[in-house]
């Protein structure tokens, strides 16, 4: 059995209450940090651990923390990004639902490390019930002296608030999140200045993913070096993977970053293989915005090496033959799934969620969605395929925030690897639609 650092006690009955959580070693990291460590020592431990941001970009957390500007007399803020909206990703939801105290504990320890006296959890609007779970956990933490003034007699004060968003994907982008938290329309800001210098209310701010903040707890408890022993190279520690699609056992898994993709898909410990004994067609390893991988590149890289569940190995080969670990939204497709329909679905999502601020993303995402809709519904032309590649290329890198890139990558990757299927949709739209609606099998049965 693999080691679990975050979800170890997730199945313990009543773990969402303070008493049970405390009995299972809860709030030890806060005790240790407040009583025996200085804030800089906590930051050093996180640096040593090699922890990388779990929200998708994989930026080293310790480095991000050390970038935080510390001008005199200006408050600093820690904001937890719980606006988990990437299609295919549901790990934070599981973590917050099951063990809300782990996030609260992580927030206290991290806030102490950063010298923040006010911290926020920004949760997406669709997770409305989790708001109450978190608020209950925070109230329990206040009642037991883990939050508020003079925490456990250490002289450190912290107030923690939960803020619920309106349900926009774009508010997962850190500067849009900050705007939304300030009560404005959630439009991304133009960077620089980065939030580490001018963030929430123009004060230095760190924005971290739920899983990143939760991972600070085992890092402080066991030490950064111990954490760094798990995993391969620069991919240290454990990662929550939200596995979905045509697999036998979809769900949230905590993996050590040293197993292969093949093992993850086919082993009974994890996904348990492809459903109904079908063949693997493709895989999106890190949430809808990362490039799709065709079956021959899922388990092996282009060089023939085994592909591992790590940041580096999944990105091996760049975007030509690789992908990204992203947020860990692992979507598996079997042989019957339609890549064109899937790409259209993703494009529709991004067109709907574009904030409308900058031209390439606002107009380009809508355009790609319309072209893909036409291709999928039998009205496509051969020139549409190159048009899509061209539009995607023109959005990519030219926008204010990464939503433009996130919309462009899946489209260009799908065409790169599955061009024949797009051409088939143009040449024989009837057959393509029959397959997509499952009518092929009905004919055989009749």
């Amino acid at each position, binding site marked *: 059995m693999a080691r679990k650092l975050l979800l170890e006690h997730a199945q313990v009955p009543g773990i969402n209450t303070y008493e049970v959580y405390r009995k299972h070693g809860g709030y030890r990291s806060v005790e240790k940090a407040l009583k025996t460590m200085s804030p800089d020592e906590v930051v050093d431990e996180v640096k040593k651990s090699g922890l990388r941001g779990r929200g998708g970009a994989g930026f080293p957390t310790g480095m991000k923390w050390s970038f935080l500007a510390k001008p005199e007399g200006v408050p600093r803020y820690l904001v937890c990004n719980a606006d988990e909206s990437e299609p295919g990703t549901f790990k934070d939801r599981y973590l917050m639902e099951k063990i809300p105290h782990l996030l609260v504990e992580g927030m206290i320890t991290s806030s102490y490390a950063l010298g923040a006296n006010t911290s926020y959890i920004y949760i997406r609007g669709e997770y409305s019930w989790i708001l109450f779970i978190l608020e209950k956990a925070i109230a329990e933490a206040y009642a037991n002296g883990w939050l508020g003034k003079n925490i456990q007699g250490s002289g450190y004060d912290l107030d923690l608030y939960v803020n619920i968003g309106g349900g926009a994907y774009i508010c997962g982008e850190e500067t849009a999140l900050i705007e939304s938290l300030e009560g404005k329309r959630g439009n991304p800001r133009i960077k620089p200045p980065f939030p580490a210098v001018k963030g929430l209310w123009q004060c230095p701010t760190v924005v971290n993913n739920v899983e990143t903040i939760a991972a600070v707890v085992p890092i402080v408890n066991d030490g950064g070096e111990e954490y760094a022993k798990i995993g391969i190279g620069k991919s240290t520690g454990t990662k929550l993977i939200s596995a979905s699609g045509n697999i036998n056992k979809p769900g949230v898994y905590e993996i050590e970053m040293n197993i292969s993709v093949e093992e993850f898909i086919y082993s009974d410990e994890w996904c348990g293989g492809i459903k109904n004994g079908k063949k693997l067609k493709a895989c999106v390893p890190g949430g809808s915005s990362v490039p799709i991988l065709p079956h021959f590149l899922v388990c092996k890289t282009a060089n023939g090496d085994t592909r591992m569940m790590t940041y580096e190995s999944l990105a091996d080969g760049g975007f030509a033959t690789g992908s990204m670990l992203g947020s860990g939204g692992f979507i598996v497709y079997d042989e019957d799934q339609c890549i064109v329909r899937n790409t259209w679905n993703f494009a529709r999502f991004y067109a709907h*969620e574009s*904030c409308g*601020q*900058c031209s*390439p993303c*606002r*107009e380009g*995402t809508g355009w790609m969605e319309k072209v893909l809709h036409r291709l999928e519904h039998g009205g496509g032309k051969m020139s549409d395929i190159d048009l899509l590649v061209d539009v995607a290329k*023109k959005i990519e890198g030219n926008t*204010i925030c990464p939503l433009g890139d996130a919309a462009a990558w899946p489209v260009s990757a799908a065409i790169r690897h599955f061009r024949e299927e797009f051409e088939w949709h143009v040449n024989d739209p009837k057959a393509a639609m029959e397959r997509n609606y499952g009518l092929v099998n009905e004919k055989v049965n009749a």
Partner: protein
Amino acid sequence: MPKVTIDGQTIEVAEGTTILNAARQIGGELVPPAMCYYSTLKGSGGKCRTCLVRVTKGSEKDPRPMPKLVASCQTMVMDGMEVASKSDPSVVDARAAVTEFLLINHPLDCPICDQAGECHLQDLAFEHGKSNTRYEFERRTFEKIDIGPYIKLHMTRCIMCFRCVFTAQQLCPERVHGIIHRGDHAEISTFIEKSIDSEFSGNVIDVCPVGALTDRTFRFKSRVWFLNPMDAHRDCPTCSGKAVVWMYGGEIYRVTARKDKYGEVHDFICNTCRFHTKEKGSWTIEGPRDLDRHSVISQNHYEHGEKTVR
């Protein structure tokens, strides 16, 4: 004072100057087009992406090039920075791409649009656009809305530059004007279609780069190139009173604020001057206004034949 080189031309500018403003100080062909940046509106810019440039050398201290194209209106110059504007084919490509994106949902109704002739999108398309479109879907359309007695909002033409929003926020006392919805269905709106009744609301017409906000007292009265723009002023208790009156014969057809070379207003004018003062006797005419903006209206290119059309 930092030194910056743009397309081979070096200039020394004040600390905190953006690449776009440094380019404007040099002037000429290398100045990036700007559809949303407006120097007199705080917070504007960065949205339209037409002013993208490539920074080939970050600074003297850190000579690494920037990985992506950057919005020149938002990027501060550093000492020793080298920038490629029109000289870099990828920059020209990116501008052409943005032009295409801006045009896919634009109605291209220039023949009946009051803004034609002084439209920034027209100028941009003239320089960077293609003669045909690859967009084959129905364009986004909206109903025309009267916001107050003087301003017509025609959202179909809007390119979402946000300039009017900043104008409304910064010149008018109450926030009455903003964006609703998002993505390609986002639209400019007033609070449940209420009228804008600030005395400075008319300035949203001047800042609009396209024909989305037009003057209802001038709509369909004349094409702008038939009118003679004259610098004029009057004693106004509300604003500076410095304006441009657009005349045909002895009659004033419309009044606008004075725009500089880049279409930017520095002295905003009030609604009384703009909409209610159209008698010639109320104004002291200073003389003809020189339009040095390289727009269709100022070029007079059509009668000179092909060679002067850029």
